[in-house]
């Protein structure tokens, strides 16, 4: 058993940074009051100040103003709010057609499919073999009935970064609301809402060493969106519920800590994994775009072997990764992202995602490739596929 876990599943959840906890702590034990109006009591006003400050930091990182940023319980809620909120606002008035890319994460795809049952029409937009959405194809898919387009900033599994500017321009030209899920790019890949024509942006803390259970939705001024979570008047009367102030403070601290040099380091580690794995392990294929991809993501299919077997062997060696294999998924279906880029069951079956975070090192990259070379070769020796004499 390894001395420590080599954790390469940071796209799913990250280890929280101690500095984040430190920033959050006073809001559990000292300033624990509800955020009151400026006419409340001192403890509540202090809580309100902390919330405002966090909102300012988080909105600034998106090139937005504070009143355009609403806190949520995470990226799942943010994307639900964006898609269902716009559908509620425009469904009766303008039309019932929604376009989302085929490789969106589940909160987007399943929100759209839930609306489909309510009488909306959903187009799952095809992507290229590298995962890219073509702005021209999008333009063709938009009709007079289209009210919303949702295309992620970068993909959760294969890391492909979309041409968000090109897509945004098409939406603006057609007068369609544009939502993007930036869960995996926030602070790592620039997205400036003051320059890019985007209406709604999903972000979250859990991917950047912040706390779980806090996220946000950027809502450009004037975007038609109907309140969905009913209750009090919190969050500009757009999302009810007691504010998660420790979470908000922790989220803002997490954003402050991410530095460009760190992201550069992650990209170097990513490159090392990709280069070594493709060179040293035969019959391996990179999934996603070679260069236009998340700095912290690598995704490789090792042909003729199955992903759950690989992850289990890696786990025995103290290494954590994830796979797009059906055997690993809760629905027993292979990755819809791999199928979406034209891959078959076999491509999904042996696909492994490596997602990096703050605490990973070059040594981790070497350790995982060394381990994989052995494991893949061992599993191939018992596989009926890929033998020379077949």
């Amino acid at each position, binding site marked *: *058993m390894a001395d420590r876990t080599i954790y390469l599943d940071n796209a799913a959840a990250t280890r929280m940074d101690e500095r984040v906890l430190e920033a959050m702590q006073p809001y559990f034990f000292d300033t624990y009051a509800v955020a009151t109006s400026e006419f409340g009591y001192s403890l509540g006003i202090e809580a309100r100040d902390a919330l405002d400050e966090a909102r300012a930091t988080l909105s600034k990182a998106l090139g937005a103003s504070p009143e355009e940023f609403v806190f949520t319980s995470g990226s799942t809620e943010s994307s639900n709010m964006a898609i269902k909120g716009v559908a509620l606002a425009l469904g009766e008035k303008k039309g019932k057609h929604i376009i989302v890319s085929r490789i969106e994460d589940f909160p987007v795809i399943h929100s759209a*499919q839930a609306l489909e*049952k309510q009488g909306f029409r959903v187009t799952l937009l095809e992507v290229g073999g590298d995962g890219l959405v073509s702005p021209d194809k999008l333009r063709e898919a938009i009709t007079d009935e289209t009210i919303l387009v949702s295309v992620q900033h970068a993909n959760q599994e294969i890391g492909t970064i979309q041409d968000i500017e090109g897509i945004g321009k098409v939406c603006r030209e057609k007068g369609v609301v544009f939502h993007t899920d930036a869960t995996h790019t926030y602070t790592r890949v620039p997205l400036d809402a003051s320059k890019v024509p985007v209406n709604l942006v999903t972000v979250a803390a859990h991917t950047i060493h912040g706390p779980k259970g806090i996220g946000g939705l950027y809502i450009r001024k004037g975007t038609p969106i109907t309140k969905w979570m009913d209750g009090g008047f919190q969050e500009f009367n757009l999302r009810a519920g007691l504010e998660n102030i420790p979470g908000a403070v922790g989220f803002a601290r997490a954003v402050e800590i991410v530095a460009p040099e760190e992201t550069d380091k992650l990209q170097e580690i990513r490159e090392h994994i990709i280069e070594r794995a493709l060179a040293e392990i035969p019959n391996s294929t990179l999934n996603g775009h070679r260069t236009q991809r998340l700095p912290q993501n690598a995704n490789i299919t090792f042909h*003729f*072997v*199955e*992903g*759950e*077997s690989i992850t*289990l062997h890696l*786990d*025995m060696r*103290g290494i954590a990764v994830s796979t797009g*294999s*059906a*055997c*690993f998924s*809760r*629905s*027993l*279906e*292979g990755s819809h992202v791999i199928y979406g880029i034209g891959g078959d*069951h*076999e491509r*999904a*079956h042996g696909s492994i995602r490596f997602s990096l975070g703050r605490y990973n090192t070059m040594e981790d990259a070497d350790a995982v490739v060394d381990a994989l070379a052995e494991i893949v070769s061992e599993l191939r*020796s*018992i*596989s*009926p*596929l890929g033998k020379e004499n077949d």
Partner: protein
Amino acid sequence: MRSPYNETVMEHFRHPRNVGKIDNPDGKSTEGSPACGDMVSVYISVDEATKTISDVKFESYGCASNIATGSIITELAKGKTLDEAKKITWKQASDALGGLPPIKAHCSVLAVEGLRSAIQNYEEKHGLVKEKKPTTVEIVQQRLRKVMDPLTGLGLVRAKLVQDIKVKDGVVRIKVDLPSGHQFASAIKQEIHEKLDTLWDIKEVVVDYVE
């Protein structure tokens, strides 16, 4: 480490027995499930006089439960007569492994199928198979027993997920007691196809959901 598999399963996964091919096998088969993607090949050598399995090997393109079941099934089959080996069930294999998670039944049942098909392959080659029977509701039911409900680990029929079966003019129509939006709806449908599409006199298999 924490694993959903017990020590026996993990041991067979780490050190699978009887792995590989047999050159010029007396019987061989490859079973695969497009739903899970797993595949298993089984090779047998048969002692002609006693009709016993003198050697058996397997190869797996699959997850841990698939590999472990392949391994245990070779241990269970070796030395058995063909008739005895044919009767080895998934339950026996699973019990010999100390139990498998229900959600893994569909990947592990492949190895059991693989062994039976390898025996069938031997029997066909040696003229031991009776005439082809036309497909009936009973035959469909029998096949559906091997499609596992991932929630309970039981066959679809026992899990009471099959509402209706109709066989007419080469078309099998099955109604499953699941909404089309169910978590496993699509995986189960693919497995039904895999088990029934190969029936010799069936042109089309239609799966309907309750909605």
